């Protein structure tokens, strides 16, 4: 995750509080009915991730690109997991440290501001690794996935979800379009949407066994619709609101046509 990525994620955490759910989970929820709220969808999604990782309780989990700690805190509270979160955005970690103290989770949750390139986990130190919407900001996919595999014990699980160009051909057609460039440089500073096939190939090359692929595109569209509604209600005085709205509207115009959102579940296993 390059330092340039911080320009978005290091914005004032209160900005994100205005449009995300109370857990401040900045990735797709999982909706099960027309009346599901954003917060319910995010809690349901966190349970879904735990299920995909086959967590039973007490596991050691590494969250790469941990945002404001929604998954770290949820797995510690609901599953008694020992969680460690990394991301390069310093302000995220100040926020997480505050939440950990408030909730009395200091024995279970740790976090550090470090880019993936500079982070070297103890070998086989984790039962599970999660990467929700973070690999898009990491240029060296193969190096990252090799590092993740080293971090896992034998039989350990990886949950990786990401927005993807819908195909290699669509990437070639759209990668230099103004909308893509605005999101990449204007909002995030860096980021490369890859087609799912490239993520799968990367996981295969790193030696992972692919356990499942899930299409979460419709859930991300609905999640972003909720965020757009919250941002509009928050008003234009919110710092950066106009750029955020433009980014989210570009994202939601593209789903299914240029982009998809997938979750990839892998195991360190034969």
């Amino acid at each position, binding site marked *: 995750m390059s330092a340039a990525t911080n320009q978005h994620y290091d914005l004032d955490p209160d900005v994100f509080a205005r449009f995300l759910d109370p857990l401040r989970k900045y990735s797709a929820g999982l909706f099960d009915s027309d009346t599901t709220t954003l917060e319910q969808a995010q809690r349901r999604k966190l349970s879904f991730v735990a299920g995909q990782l086959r967590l039973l309780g007490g596991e050691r989990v590494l969250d790469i690109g941990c945002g404001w700690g929604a998954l770290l805190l949820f797995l510690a509270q609901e599953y008694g997991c020992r969680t460690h979160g990394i991301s390069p955005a310093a302000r995220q970690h100040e926020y997480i440290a505050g939440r950990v103290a408030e909730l009395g989770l200091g024995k279970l949750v740790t976090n550090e501001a470090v880019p993936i390139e500079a982070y070297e986990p103890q070998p086989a130190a984790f039962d599970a690794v999660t990467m929700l919407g973070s690999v898009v900001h990491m240029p060296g996919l193969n190096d990252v996935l090799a590092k993740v595999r080293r971090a896992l014990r034998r039989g350990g699980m990886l949950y990786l979800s990401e927005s993807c160009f819908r195909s290699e*051909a*669509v990437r070639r*057609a*759209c990668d230099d*379009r*103004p*909308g893509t460039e605005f999101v990449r440089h204007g909002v995030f500073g860096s980021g490369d949407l890859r087609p799912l096939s490239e993520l799968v190939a990367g996981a295969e090359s790193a030696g992972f066994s692919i356990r499942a692929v899930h299409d979460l595109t419709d859930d991300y569209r609905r999640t972003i619709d909720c965020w757009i509604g919250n941002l509009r209600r928050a008003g234009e005085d919110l710092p950066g609101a106009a750029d955020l709205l433009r980014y989210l*509207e*570009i994202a939601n*115009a*593209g789903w299914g*046509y*240029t982009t998809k959102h997938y979750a990839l579940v892998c195991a360190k296993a034969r």
Partner: protein
Amino acid sequence: MTSEASTAATPVPETITGIVAAILGRDAAELTPDTDLRSVEGADSIKVLRIVAKLEQTYDIELEDDEIFGLRTIDEVVAVVGRALARDHG
């Protein structure tokens, strides 16, 4: 087929022009059959995708990639919708 689609089973140029104009934020009278959509002020590839999404929903069709990414004029949009209707609804 949705009820909306059954009432709009033929690609009426005026209806399509109305959809395009609404999404581009222009008056339908400004748009002629050979207007290059990308030359319209305020148009961009994101709005073209929104037009495609609205057409697919209105006519209950799915456009092919080369149709979506090759759209230039209202005339072409009408032709593409007509082809997709023939494909998807015979």
